[in-house]
């Protein structure tokens, strides 16, 4: 197994022979992909996957085994996705190296959706020196106004980075960042119009999301912050702890706030760029 992986350029395997050893390794080392047999002396390959899902839900797993899927006990793991490769296939070793390389390259385990233009979107986002801009005070005043306007428990402005949503201002709570897979904004950013979820408990995309439940989120509305090239870099959102809907006028209003937040960000960045030129001159 290790030889097949080592045969691919850039891949270096580290090995463990038991569930316990694999669990320790997963906790102490950064791994890009786990390849495991099903039958292990102290458990099964799916127990290894259980350890991994707690530590990093995005890491892909390949179950490389001669045990048929029909003989594998999935009772406790019904929504845990793994790649399966029968090690008895004639080309199994070649195929294993190829698959491991492929799943690492394409982050195949991602449980959220990304825009078609994710690469250029992230490049557009990187053009804003958010850490260096005096933006938080302006954004905080804006989220205060938004919370007041909609009479909601929480309003926030967040920028959507590769793996997390970075909350720049938040009225009604102290959110800092949220894993992208756990945010409703991950879905909202793909919609053309303001996205409203009246009650997350009635939507299976969010009902079993512990992070949202722990934050007390029940209803959500989010509007895109879109730059001049059409890239969505962030969201302006309102949250309530109870079910609610938003009228067409309210949705339009939220979209206007998102456009205002984008203008503030653009202006601050333009000012910073201009001052940089002055200093250089």
């Amino acid at each position, binding site marked *: 197994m290790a030889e097949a992986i080592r045969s691919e350029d850039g891949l270096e395997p580290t090995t463990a022979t038991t569930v316990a050893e694999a669990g320790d390794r997963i906790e102490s080392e950064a791994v890009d992909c786990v390849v495991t047999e099903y039958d292990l002396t102290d458990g099964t390959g*799916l127990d290894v996957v259980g350890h991994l899902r707690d530590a990093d839900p995005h890491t*892909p797993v390949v*179950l490389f085994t001669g045990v*048929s*899927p*029909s003989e*594998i006990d*999935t009772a406790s*793991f*019904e*929504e*845990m*996705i*793994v*790649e*399966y*490769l*029968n090690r008895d*296939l*004639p*080309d199994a070793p*070649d*195929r294993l*190296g*190829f*698959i491991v390389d*492929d*799943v690492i390259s*394409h982050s*195949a*385990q*991602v*449980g*959220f*959706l*990304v*825009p*078609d233009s994710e690469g250029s979107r992230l490049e557009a986002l990187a053009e804003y020196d958010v850490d260096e801009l005096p933006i938080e005070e302006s954004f905080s005043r804006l989220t205060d106004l938004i919370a007041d306007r909609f009479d909601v428990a929480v309003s926030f402005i967040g920028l959507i980075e590769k793996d997390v949503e970075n909350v720049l201002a938040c009225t009604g709570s102290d959110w800092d960042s949220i894993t992208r*897979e756990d945010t409703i904004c991950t*879905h909202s950013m*793909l*919609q*053309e119009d303001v*996205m409203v*979820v009246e009650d997350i408990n*009635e*939507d*299976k*995309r969010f*009902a*079993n*999301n512990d992070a949202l439940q722990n934050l007390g989120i029940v209803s959500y509305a989010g509007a895109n912050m879109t730059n001049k090239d059409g890239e969505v870099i962030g969201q302006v959102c309102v949250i309530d702890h109870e079910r609610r809907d938003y009228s067409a006028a309210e949705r339009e209003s939220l979209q206007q706030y998102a456009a205002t937040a984008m203008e503030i960000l653009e202006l601050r960045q333009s000012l910073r760029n201009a001052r940089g030129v002055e200093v250089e001159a």
Partner: protein
Amino acid sequence: MSLAGRQTFAVDSLAIDDIPGNTSILLTSDDSDALEAVFYRLVAAPEDEQSVVLATESSGRSTKRSLKNAIRGADDRSTMLTCEGPDRGEGVQSVAELGDLTRLGMDFSELFAEAQQTEAPLRAGILLCSTIMGEVDDTRSVYRFLNSNFLSQLRRSKALGVCAIDMSADIGADIDSTVVGLETSFSARIDVESTGRKQATLDVSGLGDNDGTIEVSW
């Protein structure tokens, strides 16, 4: 290593120009009959090709009949996972529980790997993904299933893949918003609107010169 040879895929019965390999199509309609008819015309394998089908609401016998109706002999060039009826016939394997995505994903991966033991170009399809979404507790696991066990396999085998969604289904979430999100994972979209008995308009995007509306009948 290369897991596939050439590929373009002919879809003569729908008046669509050849589709390049490694194309993934999100196929949607609120008319289940029209959706099914177009699905099988995309996925049925002509001679020298093969199909892998996950059928969530039909038996092996019914699925084979539908493939055969689309292209004569396509049933003999197919393997399938079915969720209805007995596990009967060559190349038919049944799924015990549709909500068990761990098992479903492994079964699907195994079918793909076995199909790739030959050089024949591969067409693969899921009819209906909306049924799977209705069965699971957390839609995020369907995204992982599609990314890991379907789209990855298409990419590796340069296959043509079709994932069908019945827009009239109850998936436990806003289906329009969900499909807008799902669309980002696929390279093309075909929306089927029934216009009469055995007639439909296809609204095609992401398929190059095929983009636009196409009138079809069967």
